[in-house]
């Protein structure tokens, strides 16, 4: 048996547990060990699922079939635009934004007017939504007691009021423990994540119970529903509602980031951007899980309570109660309580911050100049205002609940709130991506959209509740049909939400864009626009300091901070700032632009950007920079960034060029060294024959009586050496020409076989003198290559004369073979000389290196023949190399490519 006392005790115990979780979270945060992980962050996003989801979705499914899913598909798609959300988070962290009102006000020049306007819209739009939560809790309590026959609370005590009071107390304890410059409440986030788990578990439990306990599973349920004609239509899609479907996806997609509580959780309470990576799929998965049993529950309720009087919004409770499953019903009640309290806590904290910073503070500050409250420490006042705001907002919610009561279904109220916060979209998106958007435009857009929303949605809902005459809905304002509230200008065929969304966004976007284009931003606005739109580029905040110029005193700013943050927190922040600046004592800090920025940022966290700006301006004499100058500074900053990027790329290019140069220099030095070597070798080579010529000439000169035989022998040697000298000089010149590329080439068709035969013939005498056999294996005709005939002859002569030099007399054998394959001609000159070592095979192609031991044997050549030959062969695209082993003769081979075939 469920007694009211027990249920209330259970509720209080559950709230106590939540509070314990929150205290634990706060304690861990204070100790620097945050429990906010990616999973906790993702779960806390599920504060989106209020009691409207928990109870209302089933009710909506009983009339609209699957259309309730749009409310959850929209957020799924919106969250996938991670870039937008990360941009919001970055901006909020850089600008110390603590609410959506602050965000919009800060973007459009820290405008108090805009901050107040957004706050008013948010409060008007969201208070009914809070009332809805109270109504849900109250309805669930009633259901629990009615069905179980228990007595309701005795006397005049109203259970909903008790719940509202409890929630207010709870929120105050949670949200305003102390003043934090970042407005972050880790304990609260932990409690919300915990509640999300509870409500999901409760909903899944009842879903499984009904689907598998009361019915025979999903397909049984669907089969029985399909059999009932009035239920069958819930199972299929209704194409005539395509427009509504899309509009609701858009609406809920905007709500997931612009509802004050969602902005609070997603943006303000975000500890680490990386957590979004988890939230982007875990939160949608949560939505799928909590929705999968909604339609089965709706059908189950309709089937089970057929023909009875029932309220589909309470099916999740009445179905288990109908089966006597009281403990499950209690679990469901706790789940619903979780959903409601989570929403109310976060929403009221977010709204109270907005009301305090953007409505009360500006008014109070102005009043203070009249002499009110020259208090030393205002931080206590600030907390007091927030607490009062929380109580006020919940009281408003309660009053609305009492007044509206049963007037309008749960779902209707939720969507009206969604449509209200959707009005923030143009100013928000425009502010983040469009620098030209101005304050005047944002104010006009918001006012226009809000007015249309009020006329087409809020007032008609009042009319439905019977508070005002419904003439403007039925006949149109002043009887003008075009002004019918839910068929504006004759636009009909849409449901009221899509109708209102369409017209209000049209007015909002139209006015925002039009007025923005025809108005001029002031200096502060232009600066803020730059910082918001280019947040990813302004990471280093390099321009911030330069956008402020004036005089200030540290003492005045510090006393300002102490007044609003309290002396303790102010000193903490100052010490942290001083440490970041590299000084230990904040008294020694200069009162420069950076310090003013710091003070303003700290104040922004506490009292909102608009009020903070006013306060700082009151103690610091700021010079007005003027729009032109601000734009110049911003341009300059952009240009400096562009230049520095350019400089970076230039310096990279320079480095690459330097590396190239260094390499080239290395190569040059190597060549220089080689040239030196070459010259010293050449001079050495030239000196050898010269020396012998000179010695012999001197002998001839000094000894006129030398006999004729000796004289003739000496002269013979002189002639030989002179010839060698000439040859050497010729070859050096030839080599130099080849290497420098100045050699003259005449390219023509050359029959290589003919060249080989001719060379063999011309050198035949040389071979015969030494008694060396010369054999040829050469085809009759061809092969024909494109080359310089004289040069190839030079190569052949070189190879043959080399061979004859090294083979032994009488037994010597030199073989010449010419053959061709498909691509090249191969010429081999093989001898049976002493052969070459592996090392020599390479060395002999270097200049002035000769076969044999040059130290002991008399050089027999110039040492340039083979290098020249190799140059020639390589010029024609071939190769020259030697294959040899010591004692096994040497085989010199060169190839010349055949000309490409004509075919």
């Amino acid at each position: 048996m469920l007694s009211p006392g027990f249920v209330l005790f259970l509720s209080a115990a559950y709230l106590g547990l939540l509070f314990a979780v929150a205290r634990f979270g706060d304690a861990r945060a204070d100790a620097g060990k945050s429990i906010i992980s990616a999973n906790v962050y993702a779960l806390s996003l599920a504060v989106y699922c209020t009691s409207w989801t928990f109870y209302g979705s089933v009710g909506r499914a009983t009339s609209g079939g699957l259309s309730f899913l749009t409310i959850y598909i929209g957020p799924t798609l919106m969250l996938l635009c991670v870039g937008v959300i990360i941009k919001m988070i970055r901006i909020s962290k850089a600008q110390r934004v603590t609410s959506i009102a602050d965000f919009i006000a800060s973007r459009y020049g820290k405008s108090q007017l805009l901050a107040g306007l957004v706050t008013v819209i948010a409060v008007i739009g969201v208070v009914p939504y809070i009332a809805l939560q109270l109504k849900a809790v109250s309805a669930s309590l009633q259901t629990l007691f009615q069905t179980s026959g228990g007595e309701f609370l005795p006397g005049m005590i109203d259970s909903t009021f008790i719940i509202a009071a409890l929630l207010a107390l709870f929120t105050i304890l949670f949200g305003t423990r102390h003043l934090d410059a970042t407005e972050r409440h880790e304990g609260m986030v932990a409690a919300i994540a915990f509640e999300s788990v509870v409500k999901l578990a409760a909903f899944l439990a009842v879903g499984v119970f009904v689907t598998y306990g009361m019915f025979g599973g999903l397909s049984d349920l669907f089969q029985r529903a399909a059999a009932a004609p009035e239920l069958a239509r819930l199972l299929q899609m209704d194409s005539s509602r395509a427009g509504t479907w899309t509009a609701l996806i858009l609406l809920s997609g905007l709500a997931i980031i612009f509802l004050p509580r969602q902005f609070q959780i997603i943006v303000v309470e975000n500890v680490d951007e990386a957590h979004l990576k988890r939230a982007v799929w875990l939160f949608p998965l949560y939505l799928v899980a909590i929705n999968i049993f909604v339609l089965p529950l709706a059908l189950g309720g309709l089937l089970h309570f057929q023909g009875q009087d029932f309220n589909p919004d309470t099916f999740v409770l009445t179905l288990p109660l109908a089966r006597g499953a009281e403990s499950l019903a209690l679990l469901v009640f706790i789940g619903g309580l979780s959903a409601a309290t989570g929403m109310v806590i976060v929403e009221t904290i977010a709204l109270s911050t907005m009301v305090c910073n953007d409505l009360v503070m500006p008014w109070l500050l102005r009043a203070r100049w009249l002499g009110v409250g020259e208090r030393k420490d205002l931080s206590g006042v600030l907390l007091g205002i927030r607490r009062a705001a929380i109580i006020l907002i919940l009281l408003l919610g309660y009053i609305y609940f009492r007044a509206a009561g049963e007037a309008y279904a749960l779902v209707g109220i939720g969507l009206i709130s969604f449509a209200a916060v959707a009005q923030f979209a143009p100013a928000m998106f425009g502010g983040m991506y469009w620098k030209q958007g101005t304050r005047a435009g944002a104010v006009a857009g918001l006012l226009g959209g809000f007015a249309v929303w009020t006329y087409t949605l809020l007032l008609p809902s009042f009319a439905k509740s019977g508070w005002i005459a419904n003439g403007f809905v039925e006949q149109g304002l002043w009887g003008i049909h075009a002004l019918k509230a839910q068929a504006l200008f004759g636009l009909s065929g849409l449901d009221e939400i899509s109708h209102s969304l369409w017209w209000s966004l049209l007015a909002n976007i139209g006015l925002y864009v039009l007025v923005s284009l025809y108005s001029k931003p002031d200096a502060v606005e232009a600066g803020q626009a730059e910082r918001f739109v280019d947040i990813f580029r302004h990471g280093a905040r390099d321009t911030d300091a330069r956008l402020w110029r004036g005089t200030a005193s540290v003492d005045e700013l510090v006393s300002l901070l102490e007044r609003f943050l309290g002396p303790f927190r102010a000193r903490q922040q100052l010490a942290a700032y001083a440490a970041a600046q590299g000084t230990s004592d904040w008294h020694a800090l200069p009162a420069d632009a950076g310090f003013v920025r710091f003070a303003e940022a700290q104040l922004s966290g506490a009292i909102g950007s608009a009020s903070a700006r006013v306060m700082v301006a009151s103690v610091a004499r700021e010079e007005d920079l003027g729009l032109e100058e601000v734009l110049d500074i911003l341009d300059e900053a952009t240009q400096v960034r562009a230049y520095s990027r350019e400089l970076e790329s230039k310096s990279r290019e320079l480095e690459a060029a330097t590396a190239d140069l260094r390499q080239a220099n290395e190569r040059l030095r190597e060549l220089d060294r080689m040239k030196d070597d070459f010259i010293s070798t050449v001079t050495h080579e030239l000196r050898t024959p010269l020396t012998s010529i000179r010695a012999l000439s001197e002998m001839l000169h000094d000894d006129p009586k030398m006999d004729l035989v000796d004289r003739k022998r000496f002269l013979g040697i002189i002639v030989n050496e002179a010839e060698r000298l000439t040859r050497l000089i010729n070859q050096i010149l030839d080599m130099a020409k080849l290497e420098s590329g100045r050699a003259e080439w005449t390219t023509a068709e050359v029959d290589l076989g003919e060249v080989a035969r001719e060379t063999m013939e011309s050198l035949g005498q040389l071979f015969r003198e030494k008694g060396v056999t010369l054999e040829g294996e050469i085809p009759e005709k061809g092969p024909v290559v494109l080359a310089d005939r004289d040069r190839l002859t030079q190569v052949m002569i070189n190879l043959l004369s080399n061979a004859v030099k090294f083979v032994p007399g009488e037994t010597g054998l030199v073989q010449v073979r010419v053959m061709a394959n498909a691509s090249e001609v191969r010429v081999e000159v093989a001898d049976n000389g002493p052969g070459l070592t592996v090392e020599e095979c390479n060395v002999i192609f270097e200049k002035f290196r000769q076969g044999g031991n040059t130290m002991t044997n008399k050089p027999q050549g110039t040492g340039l023949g083979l290098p020249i030959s190799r140059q020639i062969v390589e010029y024609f695209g071939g190769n020259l190399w030697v294959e040899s082993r010591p004692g096994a003769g040497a085989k010199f081979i060169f190839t010349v490519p055949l000309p490409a075939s004509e075919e």
Partner: protein
Amino acid sequence: MKRANPMRQRLAALGLLGVPLLTYPLLSLPQGEIAGIPAPYLYLFGMWILLIVLAAVVAERRGK
């Protein structure tokens, strides 16, 4: 200039893909029932879960 984050772009592309998949006129395609479950119910939840799984794969993949 910083290059745009590829993960964010992939996720945004998934979001854009989701819009036509989860709205009309494609939604009017599934009709009747499969294995006793209404086809629209299967299609909506199936497509939705598919998008989420793809998003999870993209988001949780270790960046190189």
